[in-house]
Each structure stands twice: as C-alpha cells, then as structure tokens.
C-alpha cells in the first residue's frame, strides 16, 4: 500500500542545511502495523510528517518517492493533498491536549472533519460524530459529545483524537508517540484500542515511538532509525533475537521489563551494591491535603503514612491524580499540608513556618529533581548558573569555590564541562536531566526526591540516568524518594514500594513482595501493564 524509496529531507537552519532524513526505504502492506523506533532527533517523526507533507517551515523533501496506492505523495499538488489528509491518511499526535481545539466541544470538532471531507451532512453529522466516539469506547458518548477537551482526562483526550483521525475511515493511520505522557495503564488501553480498530478496518498503521518494548508488542514490522538513516529492520522476534547493529542492541538493553536488573539496561553495566539500610530518616504520618475546588473541597491526600530508612530508596507509584506529586512537594516544603506531620531526622518538618523555611538548614538537606527537565530550568540561566544557584543561597562559598564545585558536580553526573556555558534550549533532554540532578546534589542533601525524573526521556537516556542515580546513591550515601507511574522502572531502583491511588496508600511493602504477591486489584492492574520480556 505504501512504499517509500530513497527519501531525503533537508532543513534550512541558522547553521546551514541539515539532512534530517537520508535515504529511507520503507514498505507497508494493508492491515500491517509498522513500527519506526529511534530516539529524538533520529528523523522518525520527520519521515512521517513528510508523508503528509506537513513539515515545519524550512523543511523540504529533496529526493525520493513516496508511493501511496499508485500516487506519488511528494509530487501531488496541495489541493489533492488536502483531500488525502484525513480521508486516506490520518495522524494521531503526541500531545492529545495540544491536538484538540480547547474552546470547541469535542463532538463539534469531529463534525468539522466529517463535513470537510463530505462524509456527513448537516443533518446526520451529529449522529455520526457520536458513533465515532462510541467506536473508540468512550462511555456515554452522547453526553461526552458536549464535553470540552479540558473536561476530559489525558487518556480520554487521546481517544477523541483517535476518533477524529478515524472519522473518515482512512486507509493508513500514522501514530506519532500516541502514548507518551500517559499513565502505563492508560497506555495499554489506548494501544489495545488502536490495534483492535486497525484489525477491524484492515488499516495500515505506522507507529512512531522511542519505546522498543511498546513497538515490539504491537507491530508486525520494526524499523530502527538513527541519525536519519535506517540501521536495522525486520519482524520484532527476529530483530530482538539477532540484532546486528550496535545501536539496536543498546536500545534492546535499555528497554525495561519485569525482572530486569538495573545494570542490564546499559551495555557493560556493573551491578551496584545496595547500601545497608539504617535508621528511619523520613517518617510521613497521616498527611492530608485539601484544596478548595469549584465543586467543593478536593481531597488530594487522605491520610498518607510511610517511613524511609537512611540509605534506602522508596518508590512512590500511582497514576496522575493519585496525589504522589502533591506529597513530594509537601515533603520538599513547597506547599503546606492540611494536617498530619512529617518527621525528618527526628524533628517535625513543620516546626518552621513556610516564610522562614528558605533559611532553614533542612532546605538544603531535602532537595528535589523535577519531572520536566526543560520546565525546571530557567531559560535565561546557563547550565553552570543553574547548578550554582543553590550554592549561592544555601552555602557561604565564594565565586571561585562555587565554580570548582559546579565543575566537580558536572563530572559527577557525567555532563561534559564544555556544556556548562550553554542555555537550556541548547541542551538535549538527557543533558538537561543531568543539569537538574547536579543542581539537586549541589548542596549535598541527605534526602533526594525524584519526581518522575525520566518520564520525558527516551528509553536509552532513561537507562543511563537510572544507572547514574544508582551509582550516585551508592557513592554519596543518599536516600531516595522515587516518584513514578511506571512499576517497571521502580522495581529496578527501589527496595520499598508504596502504591498510591486517589490520595490513599493502596499497598506498601518490599519491592519483591509487592511484585510477586500483589494484595490490591489496582497493583495487579499496574503489573499487567508492565511490558513482558521481548526475548522470551
């Protein structure tokens, strides 16, 4: 159905022409699912965008043929291309919230597409839009028709986007990282839905992802891309068993699954000894947090209690809205609890008022690595300035001492010294994550809160960062509170797990025990969503 021959795409940038895609060949049959796997910057999205000719400004197809059922998509004029988009070839985007118009009801947005492609008239558009919503298994579709995007959860939004993409019964669906940013349980239902719909309609699917585990589970054919070129392709089983290229092997290793050890994520990884557990460093006692919402008070935390031992690593697991981020910001004293107590090193954290806390010694003893490395760095500060920021306010170091410490920290987290003078937007995702970790470590904290530090990173970078964290914990004798929605990551790093749901502790215990004998239904659901080993 789709054949791409020797595709070349170039971008004009401030530093001259960049070859984003260099001679890509692809083939996709009807009813087949093709996975394009690679890390950011590998050209996988650019390849997909050039299919629909929606490249960013400055980008152009400089060579090759894109043959779709006998039509060369690289030559077709814009008017015919508009007919093809949505009706023949459709696309699901990475961030479902950004892909929906925030001020239009979702039902109307589906009607727009249907009527634009003359698939519906004014009279039957509404019925067809509701039918489209029903098809993506949205419960109570008739009333959801009137919902605005902000009223829906991330998973629901992605279903609406899928309904939009499939409304005109396209033959080919391009899914660009459709589940990045969704919880693992939602990720599984969304992918299952795409797979079922594709089978029903005998539709071709191109799945673009950085997650080899995901692609291996859902695709018939895999293509691994690096630096704008295809380095390896084949069926998932074949590819995982006899990967030839180094890069594919590295990707395979970096993909977490149940039972995998942390050091197995990287090639030549060494197992780190787990530091012996000491006395209790942090003790959370019946902490509650209530927000004033529009429809009455919202209980974000309803009495959460657990302990962390000195030198231990506790994994706080739950989906978005479970209260895990609220709890971690209460422990970091970024917001106040409504009731309850947090004991740190034997004294209550709440005995100093929030306004005086900036000068409290415990400000430097509890530090945090934030979820979104891009958002957590000041766009106007260089990497060195960001790392030095805590040193300036929480220590008495002079300028020279600070510079030395920043360089030492950069070495600790594996950040090349030359990158220290760069601004955040000049760094890659993994480098920004390293800057964030270096900043948190600058004042030698006792407890480090890690709020999904790898959620926004490619699996290969995630593997490196997780190993770095394990290494630092061992070398600097740190205690971790690791917040995540992903059990497969938590099981590798943490020795204790606390599963949270709707502001309450659902289950807690040693990692091994929780994984092998889950007590609650919710933990079992999380376990089911974990990817299984690809090698089996």
């Amino acid at each position, binding site marked *: 159905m789709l054949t791409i021959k020797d595709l070349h795409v170039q971008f004009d940038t401030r530093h001259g022409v960049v070859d984003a895609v260099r001679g890509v060949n692809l083939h996709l049959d009807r009813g087949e699912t093709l996975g394009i796997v690679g890390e950011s910057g590998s050209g996988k999205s650019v390849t997909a965008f050039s299919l629909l000719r929606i490249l960013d400004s400055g980008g152009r197809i400089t060579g090759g043929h894109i043959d779709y059922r006998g039509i060369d998509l690289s030559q077709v004029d814009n008017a015919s291309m508009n007919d093809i988009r949505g009706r023949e070839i459709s696309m699901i985007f990475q961030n479902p919230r950004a892909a929906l118009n925030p001020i239009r009801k979702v039902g109307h947005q589906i009607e727009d597409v249907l009527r634009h492609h003359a698939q519906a008239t004014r009279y039957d558009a509404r019925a067809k839009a509701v039918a489209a919503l029903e098809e993506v298994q949205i419960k109570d579709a008739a009333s959801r028709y009137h919902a605005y995007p902000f009223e829906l959860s991330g998973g629901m939004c992605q279903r609406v986007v899928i309904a939009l993409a499939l409304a005109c019964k396209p033959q080919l669906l391009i899914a660009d990282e459709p589940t990045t940013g969704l919880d693992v349980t939602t990720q599984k239902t969304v992918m299952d839905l795409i797979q079922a719909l594709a089978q029903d309609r005998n539709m071709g699917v191109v799945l673009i992802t950085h997650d080899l585990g995901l692609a291996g589970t859902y695709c018939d054919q895999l293509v691994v891309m690096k630096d704008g070129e295809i380095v390896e392709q084949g069926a998932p089983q074949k590819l995982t068993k006899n990967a030839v290229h180094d890069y594919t092997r590295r990707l395979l290793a970096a993909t977490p699954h149940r039972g995998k050890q942390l050091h197995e994520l990287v090639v030549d990884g060494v197992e780190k000894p787990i530091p012996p557990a000491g006395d209790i460093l942090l003790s959370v006692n019946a902490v509650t947090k209530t927000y004033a919402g529009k429809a009455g008070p919202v209980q974000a935390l309803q009495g959460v209690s657990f302990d962390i031992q000195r030198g231990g690593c506790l994994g706080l697991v739950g989906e978005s809205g479970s209260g895990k981020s609220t709890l971690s910001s209460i422990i970091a004293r970024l917001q106040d609890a409504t009731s309850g107590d947090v004991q740190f090193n034997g004294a209550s954290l709440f005995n100093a008022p929030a306004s005086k806390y900036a000068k409290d010694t415990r400000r*430097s003893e509890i530090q945090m690595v934030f979820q*979104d490395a891009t958002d957590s760095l*000041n766009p*106007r500060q260089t990497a060195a300035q960001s790392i030095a*920021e*805590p040193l300036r*306010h929480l220590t008495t170091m002079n300028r020279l001492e600070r510079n030395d410490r920043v360089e030492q920290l950069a070495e600790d987290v594996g950040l090349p010294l030359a990158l220290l003078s760069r*601004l955040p937007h000049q760094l890659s995702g993994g480098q920004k994550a390293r800057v964030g970790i270096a900043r948190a470590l600058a004042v030698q904290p006792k407890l480090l809160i890690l709020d999904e530090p790898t959620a926004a990173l490619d699996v290969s970078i995630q593997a490196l960062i997780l190993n770095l964290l394990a290494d630092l914990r061992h070398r600097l004798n740190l205690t971790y509170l690791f917040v995540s929605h992903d059990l497969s990551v938590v099981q590798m790093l943490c020795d204790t797990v606390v599963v949270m749901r709707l502001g309450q502790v659902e289950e807690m215990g040693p990692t091994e025990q929780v994984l092998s004998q889950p007590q609650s239904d919710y933990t079992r659901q999380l376990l089911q969503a974990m990817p299984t080993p690809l090698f089996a």
Partner: protein
Amino acid sequence: MSAVAQHSFVSHVAYVLRQNPVTLIAFTLLAALIVCAVFGPALVPYDPLASSDTILQPPSAAHWFGTDHLGRDVFSRVIVATRLDMAISIGAVALSFVAGSILGCIAGYWGGWFDSIISRGLDMIMAFPLFVLAMGIVAALGNTVENVIYATAVINTPFYARVVRAEVNIRREAGFVQAAKLAGNSDYRIVAMHIFPNALPPMMVQVSLNMGWAVLNAAGLSFIGLGVRPPTPEWGIMVAEGANYIISGEWWLALFPGLWLMLAVFTFNLLGDGLRDMVDPRQRL
C-alpha cells in the same frame, strides 16, 4: 566566561540585524535620531532661536526646510527639537516601565487582594480617554516638562503592568520557580531574578510601541499649549504654529516637523520585533 557571554550576545545582535532588514532599517534610523539628540545643536547650520529678516521663505539650498514667521531656520529647529522630544518619551517610558513592572509583579505573583486592588486601579486609569487624562494631570500639576513626563508615564503604566502580570502569573508555578525556591531563594528574589527577566521579550514589543505613543503624546500636549512653551523648539509646538500658515500657502512650517515626528514614531514601532528577538535567549543558537 562573561567575556564569552558578551561575545555571544554581540554576535546574536548582529545575527538579528542581518536576518531581518526591517530591524536593520529601524536601528539605523534610531541611531540617526540618537545622533541628532546628542549632537543636535552642534550639527545644525543656524541658531534655532535666532530670528532674522528672511521670514517665511520656502525651502531652498540655504534653508532646507524653509524659515518661519520670525525668520528662524526650520531645519535647525527640527533637528534640535529631537533632544527634548526623545528625553520626554524615554523618560516617560522608563518611568512607566519600572512602575508597571513592579505593580505587575506584585499582582501576578502574590495575587489575591494585591491583584484585585492593583488591577482595578489600572482599569480605572484605562477607563479614561488617555489623552484627556494626561491633559488633566499636566493642568493640575503645573505646566512644566517634568509634569508632561509624569503624565505620559501614568497613562502608559497600565499597559506594562498588564503584560507583566500575565507573564508572571503563568510562570508562578513553573518548574524552575519551584527549583529556585528549593535553592533557597526568597519570594522577592524569585520574582525579581527568575520570573521577571523571562517576561522581557513581550515587554520589549510594548516598549517600542509605547515610545511611539509617548512621542506623539508629548507633541500632542505641546500642540494644545501644555507642557513645552515657545520659543523652545519642539515638534508639537512647531506643527501648531505652522498650522496657522497652511491656509496662506506656507506649508513647510507644519509639514517638516510633522514628517520628523512621523519618522520618529515609525522608527520606534519598527524596533519592537528586533528588540524582542535580542532579549529572548531562545532565539540564540
């Protein structure tokens, strides 16, 4: 490292100027205006205040823009007036920039009562016809150049405060602000050193537009007889004086100061995009 940073800023400015010819033109015109403002009296062929016998002469080689009803050289007066008009507009914009930034930061960061009081106060200023408000302020405070600056600053402050309030508000919960709190910054430092600098790019667009308005406003006040008084050369006064002679055919008296005024406003309005790109770190590569 600061030397490296400085060099990269200079090369970034050079890049912005090269990339956008409109910005280059705007900055060239601005440079010309600044030269006129600084060296004005030294550059012009005649004393702008000296009258002579050659009254109401049309433009010629000796008097490029002609002469006025007292025989003063219009060209010299137009050039010399640049300093006063620029001083009024820059002074007014600087004052309203500072006042608007402080008010906007307080309203945007602390919210609540501060926000309500400040926002409603600014709304009240904007509810007046701004030029009439400026007239009222100058009339009440006294007819001096300083009061023209204060009046222009007052009517421009709400625009800055609103931009800053919105920019600060959306960044209040940003990750880097939380990180700054963890790094031991006080609330004041966070607003001043972390959030406010990130609001600069949109502020620069506002500055350039406001500079144009401020020049027009100052000229407008002088035109109706407030603020600067004759015989001081000032574009608004010159247009006002020249307007009487248009009917009798002496068009150059009003036209040339008017053109110069237009050129200045035009220059400031064109500066906006270029200034924004220069202070936005994300534009750097």
